[in-house]
């Protein structure tokens, strides 16, 4: 049994990554921060379940994922005919490039974020965790409570869709290689 406080510096360092994950899940910046706050509070409540020495980020992602899934389930019970994904994936402003870069790259990155936003949330999160966070498939599977094979098939489908969307981009927006 372990009742020690969670490591301060690591908790603070996890916030940006949790916000990014939450924003990818919800497609909505304000909702994402609510989700992160809830997940952090739950992490403190359940801090005995974290084993020091293991990956704190992965543990926090697991909690965040569970909070999101539970909230979405209850939102669907309340309004069963409204798809939350359809509702939040519209023009919610989360898929933006927050830091200005060069004009061309900015347009291209915005395009890419929009395309990721059009993927189903299950594929978005796997894509983020594998390609951007560079987590092992096994870690992702544990965080999402799904088999490794499911992680890989979601990832493969997400990549294929992104590739097709990129091919449909106007030629002027394609990356110059």
């Amino acid at each position, binding site marked *: 049994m372990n009742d020690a*406080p*969670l490591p*301060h510096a690591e*908790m*603070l360092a*996890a*916030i*940006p*990554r949790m*916000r*990014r994950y939450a*924003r*990818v899940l919800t497609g909505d910046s304000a909702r994402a*921060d*609510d*989700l*992160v*706050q*809830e997940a*952090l*509070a*739950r992490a*403190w409540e359940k801090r005995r379940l974290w084993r020091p020495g293991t990956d704190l980020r992965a543990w926090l992602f697991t909690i965040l994922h569970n909070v999101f899934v539970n909230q979405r389930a209850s939102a669907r019970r309340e309004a069963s005919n409204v798809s939350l994904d359809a509702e939040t994936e519209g023009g919610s402003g989360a898929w933006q*490039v*927050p*830091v200005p*870069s060069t004009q061309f*790259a900015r347009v291209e*990155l915005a395009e*890419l*974020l929009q395309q*990721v936003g059009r993927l189903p949330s299950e594929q978005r999160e796997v*894509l*983020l965790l*594998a*390609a*951007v966070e*560079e987590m*092992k*498939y096994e870690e992702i599977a544990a965080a999402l409570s799904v088999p490794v094979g499911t992680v*890989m098939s979601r*990832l*493969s489908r997400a*990549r294929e869709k*992104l*590739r097709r969307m990129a091919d449909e981009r106007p030629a002027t927006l394609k*990356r110059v290689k």
Partner: protein
Amino acid sequence: MAAIAVTDDDLMAFADGQLEGERRESVEQAIAREASLAARVTDIREQNAELRHAFDPWLAEALPPRLVAAAEGRAARGRLLRLWPAYAAAASLALGLAAGWFARDAALERTGVPTTFARQAAITHALYSADQRRPVEVWANEEASLARWLTRRMGTQAHIPDLTALGYTLVGGRLVAGNEKPTGLVMYENADKQRITLQWRLAKDAGAPSGEAAFRYASENGVGVFYWIDDDSAYALSGPLDRAQLLAVARVVYGQLAAPAPPAGGSVPKPPAEPLRPKG
């Protein structure tokens, strides 16, 4: 090594740097033989790089203080805020009040009334008087059952003063779950929608000399509170009034509680049974 079938999953795992040992070697050999396989690995890696390029700037955004507090284990659950949006403004007002009242503790120590009671009364007043939807649990149209309910729950006879002569009509009442004893609350409203509350609870341990009422006044952020101990109970009258206005109401309340009007019939408030000399 002879050709071993390389699956799409193998290629993907290889591109993501997640293949080890023999399988990794077999993929390396396969892509060395087949340019199309090598191109697919390159595609995946380029896509990963683009995604990181697109998403990494999000990490540089400034952290909201509420998330820092939550990460340090200092915050309440976010869900509470979302379930009770109507209380958010009242709660922040209440917190401000609590901070202001705290500084008064030393000055009020000698009154015989626990200052926490006055403070809690102000907070409770701010919380419920701002609640548009459900400021009370039992509404004025059930005044008789409200009095019976409060009497039963608090273990002391509840009298609900009639303040219509002062322009205040009863809104209703509720029980406030305190840390120690339950507190009764009745709320009144005038034509300007100004709300005042009377709160009381048993205070046998307050140490006030029996039969002596000490009237004390304090105000913070526009909410005034008169509070006193009479017999076995502590009372607090709170409202957005100045001292003179609130005192006028307090005199009537005190008078009616000292000599309660008969429950049924006459709505004409009786004058105070005895002159009241505020000591505060």
